[in-house]
């Protein structure tokens, strides 16, 4: 196989030795691309070079040819490294396929349906940093209540994804959308504490909207506080609620708070993948995030979350470092 390239290479070499034009070097570059694609190893390239030069300048002293033999000897190891690379690329592609399949399985397992309500507009986006998502969002829904869980495993990738499945089955065991946030956190905390090793922690926010009272009740297990936008005063505030991360100790007393939502008010729930976005100049300020959200406050909730994601993606130069989840509950 290297022999097919011998003739081509010799021609280029012959021309280049005669006239050192850029065009001849460009041809050298092109043949190089082909050589690599055909798995011609570097020691073979040296051998082709030597043979070509022997034919073009047969009267060179013996020593020159010997020098090439040493170069071939040295290049054998470079050829080996390159072959190792090809194996690794193959392996990498297999892993990639497995990851994609796993991400699909995860999506099917953890799928949640965004409820449709008359007086509440809901938007949701969750984008993993790697193939698999270590953020988790889950909706519960009955005729008068919507429950929303937003959780984040400390860590990313496969280990985090495995943990997430646990929360899902915990949520499935709950009685329904009416359950109070502190109860939900208590149940999930006990499950997590029992099943997960000491080094794995999960932060979780749980909110419940009651249509009959236009009231949003919430509790937090060490999770990023949501932002509340008050339409009347056109201002943002944080919804604070103290509470330990899930999985640390079995008995935790969580705080529960409520606010009334008026027309145009909205709650922005998120994971730290949103607040800890970094641009080249450092962390992005909370004010920047608020400004971005306020820009689109009159659009529908789904358009809002998507706009915020794309804006922040741009600000961080398309390098997403953490799973990104954003949910908006907007009273209409």
């Amino acid at each position, binding site marked *: 196989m290297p022999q097919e390239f011998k003739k081509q290479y010799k021609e280029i070499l012959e021309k280049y030795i005669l006239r050192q034009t*850029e065009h001849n*070097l*460009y041809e050298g570059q092109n043949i190089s691309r082909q050589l690599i694609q055909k798995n011609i190893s570097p020691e073979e390239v040296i051998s082709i070079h030597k043979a070509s030069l022997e034919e073009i300048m047969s009267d060179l002293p013996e020593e020159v040819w010997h020098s090439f033999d040493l170069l071939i000897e040295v290049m054998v190891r470079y050829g080996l490294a390159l072959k190792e690379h*090809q194996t690794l690329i193959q392996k990498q592609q297999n892993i990639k396929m497995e990851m994609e399949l796993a991400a699909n399985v995860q999506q099917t397992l953890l799928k949640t349906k965004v409820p449709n309500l008359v007086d509440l507009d809901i938007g949701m986006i969750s984008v993993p940093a790697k193939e698999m998502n270590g953020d988790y969002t889950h909706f519960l829904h009955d005729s008068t209540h919507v429950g929303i869980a937003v959780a984040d495993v400390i860590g990313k990738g496969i280990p985090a994804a495995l943990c997430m499945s646990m929360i899902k089955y915990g949520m499935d065991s709950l009685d329904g959308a009416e359950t109070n946030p502190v109860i939900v956190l208590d149940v999930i905390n006990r499950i997590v504490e029992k099943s997960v090793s000491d080094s794995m922690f999960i932060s979780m926010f749980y909110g419940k909207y009651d249509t009959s009272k236009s009231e949003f009740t919430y509790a937090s297990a060490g999770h990023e506080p949501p932002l509340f936008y008050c339409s009347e005063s056109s201002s943002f505030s944080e919804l604070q609620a103290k509470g330990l991360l899930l999985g640390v100790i079995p008995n935790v007393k969580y705080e529960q708070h409520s606010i009334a939502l008026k027309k145009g008010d909205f709650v922005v729930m998120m994971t730290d993948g949103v607040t800890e976005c970094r641009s080249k100049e450092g962390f992005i300020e909370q004010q920047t995030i608020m400004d971005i959200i306020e820009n689109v406050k009159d659009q529908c909730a789904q358009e809002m979350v998507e706009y915020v994601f794309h804006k922040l993606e741009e600000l961080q130069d*398309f390098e997403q470092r953490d799973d990104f989840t954003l949910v908006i509950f907007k009273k209409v």
Partner: protein
Amino acid sequence: MNLRSSVDIISEWDIVAARQLGRNEAKDVGFGTVDQARITTAISELARNIYLYAEKGNIEIKQISEGNLKGLLVIASDKGPGIADVRKAMEDGYTTSGGLGAGLPGVKRLMDDFKIETVVDEGTVITATKWMR
């Protein structure tokens, strides 16, 4: 400094012209043979990308300096289709141009600094710098 510091890329011949310009400037800055070959390869790859995917574009080459440091700046710009998924285009082994070590990740490796600005349907500007050690 060379007067003609920019080459429009329209045909394959312009790739060679851009290489020639880059090599001359690199030699002029004082880069050695190996670095000249690397810079030229990077320019070649950028020009080839324009020729293959954007049809029309431009390669600009500037000698630069920062304190005692001298270097070469390469700007490849086109009004082509843009790159929809920059993350993917920068991943190893996923170049459509095929082959190991090729494509934009290759250009990034050959140079010291590398920046990409792209808007779908508007075009792409890639800026790459090589400093003399």
